[in-house]
């Protein structure tokens, strides 16, 4: 028995501990399958409920359906799941950057249910962000179950994201790229393989359960060099629409938060607004994939004016759905708004230059989708690979790259924060790997405190202090109250020279007369960025750390730099 145990331990250690790649690949497959199943479950349930509700959409009271869905969704999230509304992607990025990918288990199902209620009833949102949240949480939970470390857990969160996106769009490369470009923010060899395998597992699960699944049927497009210039112009338009979309989404959410209505009332208001809008602009309802399909295949028959109105209608409807208490993501709205923008652009181009030779409306719908995805997420690769994969439109790859690059660059120029990052940047919590902010956030002030400091009494006579000086190397001497042990101030060598050079003063002054009480202090609650800010304000290299009026130690820039270097090496080393 002991031989078997030893053999098992030996094999386990060799396979999983010496090199964790195999462990991550195996775990990644499990995560990919589970997140793929979650995505397929949401997709199938949405198809069922949308079909079931379709006959009722012709009744006068149909405008109430999105309101009822949003109401149920908000009540479920607030009262049962006890989570916030919205799409949840910033929460995943935040967990990855600050807490080693730790996510709550409840997130693996709560957003699926709430977005099912919102989108199924007609709310203007997409199912992709909820499945990202769900997949990431599945990855995090599996990592917790296996007792993995932070780095391994982050990889599995990436696997969950990739598996979910790959499954819902049947697009494994887009899943891999989105996971690394948006969620993890770092291209590391050690991450790429498990995430790629998870993406394939997610896509395979989707294929196995829904074999006929093709999101958008492939249409042959004739794209030539003459399309490059119009593509550049379209990219500029999509960049502006992206910025406008992001701003409206955020402003609407802010207005909703400022309102005095409880969440469920807000959700009803948002849902009924979408319902009423849908009477006049049906395109605003739900995820809108069938409208996108008709645009790609060139059978979309609205006039340019109505399409133009539909773009802003969809933007407003999405903002009312997500900002006012509904649940869902912005992928699908981006695709719809992008394709509408592409169609409008194409129609406008032909009305201005009737003899121009360029690709069909469908090709411009694809380009518009790429432009919007790249602009809103500022993730150019995701934009390119997603559209190529979901439409099989490889012949449009060159203009797609042009549109994606220009749109993401231009929207970044207008507003440096993408939709997913904006909230985190505003809260000062956007901590990408390898950045100053991330490294400083990963260091703990307790690791940097030098505690071996000689403390001196406030009632100590200066002569006695001079005796201490002779044998000590310190530049700072914390002054402590005799009775209470409280920190009173600090003696800095640089400021007491005049007394030290005058032996006549040695017996005449006490330390409480010459100590510096104005030196700013740090506490154990401060993070290192705050400590550095305090040092910069005071223009000093060391400051005392004081907690509950007690001196804990000194913290210096030298120590911070030393640990910063070590952490940087660790974070950027090839694993």
């Amino acid at each position, binding site marked *: 028995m002991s031989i078997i145990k030893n053999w098992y331990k030996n094999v386990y250690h060799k396979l999983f501990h010496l090199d964790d790649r195999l462990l991550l690949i195996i775990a990644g497959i499990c995560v990919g399958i589970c997140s793929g199943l979650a995505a397929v479950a949401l997709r199938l349930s949405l198809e069922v409920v949308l079909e079931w509700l379709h006959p009722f959409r012709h009744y006068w009271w149909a405008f109430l359906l999105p309101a009822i869905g949003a109401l149920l969704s908000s009540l479920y999230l607030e009262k049962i799941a*006890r*989570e*916030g509304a*919205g799409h949840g992607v910033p*929460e995943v990025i*935040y*967990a990855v950057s*600050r*807490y080693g990918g*730790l*996510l*709550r288990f*409840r997130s693996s199902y709560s957003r699926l249910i709430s977005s099912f209620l919102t989108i199924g009833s007609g709310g203007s949102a997409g199912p992709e962000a909820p499945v990202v949240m769900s997949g990431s949480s599945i990855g995090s939970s599996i990592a*917790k179950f296996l*007792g993995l470390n932070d780095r391994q857990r982050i990889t599995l969160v990436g696997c969950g994201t990739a598996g979910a996106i790959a499954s819902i769009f049947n697009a494994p490369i887009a899943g891999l790229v989105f996971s690394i470009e948006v969620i993890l923010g770092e291209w590391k060899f050690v991450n790429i393989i498990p995430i790629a395998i998870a993406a394939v597992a997610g896509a395979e699960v989707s294929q196995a359960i829904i074999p006929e699944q093709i999101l958008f049927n492939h249409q042959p497009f004739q794209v030539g060099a003459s399309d490059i210039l119009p593509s550049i112009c379209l990219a500029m338009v999509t960049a502006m629409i992206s910025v406008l979309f992001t701003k409206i989404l955020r402003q609407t959410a802010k207005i909703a*938060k400022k309102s005095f209505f409880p969440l469920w009332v807000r959700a009803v208001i948002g849902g009924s607004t979408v319902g009423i809008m849908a009477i006049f602009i049906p395109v605003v309802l739900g995820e809108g994939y069938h409208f996108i399909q008709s645009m790609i295949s060139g059978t979309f028959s609205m006039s340019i004016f109505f399409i133009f109105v539909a773009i802003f209608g969809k933007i407003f409807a999405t903002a009312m759905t997500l900002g006012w208490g509904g649940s869902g993501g912005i992928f699908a709205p981006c695709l719809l708004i992008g394709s509408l923008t592409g169609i409008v652009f194409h129609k406008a181009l032909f009305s201005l230059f009737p003899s121009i030779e360029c690709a069909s409306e469908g090709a411009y719908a694809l380009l518009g989708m790429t432009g919007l995805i790249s602009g809103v997420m500022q993730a150019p690769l995701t934009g390119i690979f997603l559209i190529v994969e979901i439409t099989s439109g490889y012949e449009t790859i060159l203009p797609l790259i042009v549109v994606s690059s220009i749109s993401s660059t231009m929207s970044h120029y207008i507003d440096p924060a993408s939709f997913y990052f904006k909230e985190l940047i505003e*809260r000062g*919590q956007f901590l990408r790997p390898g950045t100053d902010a991330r490294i400083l956030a990963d260091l703990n002030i*307790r690791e940097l405190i030098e505690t071996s400091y000689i403390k001196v009494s406030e009632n100590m006579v200066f002569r006695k202090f001079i005796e201490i000086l002779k044998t000590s190397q310190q530049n700072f001497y914390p002054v402590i109250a005799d009775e209470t042990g409280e920190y009173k101030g600090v003696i800095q060598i640089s400021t007491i020279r005049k007394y030290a050079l005058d032996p006549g003063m040695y017996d005449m002054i006490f330390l409480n007369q010459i100590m510096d009480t104005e030196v700013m202090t740090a506490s*154990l*609650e401060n*993070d290192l960025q705050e400590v550095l800010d305090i040092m910069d304000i005071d223009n000093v290299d060391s400051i005392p750390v004081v*907690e*509950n*009026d*007690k001196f*804990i130690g000194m913290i210096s820039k030298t120590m911070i730099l030393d640990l910063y270097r070590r952490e940087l090496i660790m974070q950027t080393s090839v694993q």
Partner: protein
Amino acid sequence: MNYKLLHIFRNTPFGRETFFQSLYFCKTIDAYPVVYIPKNDKFLMYFSNDAVQIDLDHSYLTSPATAKSHAEDLFNEMDVKPMFYEPKNFTASSLPDISTNFDYLCSPRSVSDLSSKIGLGHIGPKVRRIIKQATFPILITSPVFKPWKSISVFFGGSKNALNALKLGLKIAMSSGLPLDIYTLLERKDETYYRDLIKEDGVEEPVSQLTKQWHFYKKSEFDTMLYDVPHNSLIVLGAYGHGIIKDILLGSKMEKIQSTVTNNLLITGPYCAISL
């Protein structure tokens, strides 16, 4: 010492009792209470291997306008300097992250159910998860303020129990209160337990600080609980046997907490105590 205890303040008469208990605990062991007055009905605690969302019952948000002044009054009544905790990070706008850099956490038996409903009946699932993940001991208070005058350590010989013993010794050292050890002889004899503490290097402080080491036969569990003075702080380890054994046999700590009205100080499996 610079130990800090986190107390989640509840602005109700029951919350006042719990807070008094925290203040008394801190005064006795020379620690500092830090009060968090919740502004939302939930918060998150990120431990090293788990993110625990604490859903507070609605009584935690009672009269927010008076909560701080009430807490300050109670601080002053016990002559302790008021210290309040404000969360810096937020996972979502209504979901603050509460630091886990504390040395103790005070908790009622449940934070998600009204305590009036549960009495001593059960320990809430959130409190259970905190104990299982926390790297610091959890103070589970008696329902009403009850100053404790001695320390009772339940020592069963496990790694967790050794931690609890060290914690008991630490508290005895800082408070100067007498310490008793209670051991249920489940499979081994007395010498086994004495050898355990010898191996762990705590024999000397145990002999110096312990008033009496009580041994009971396996069948005398209830007698042992009755023998523990009602005004004693019970220190014990929890959830140290692994998930399967806990499911099959149940948690001994949970049995104890549902029987005694004493204040309990619990060390979970991730809690590391050094003397």
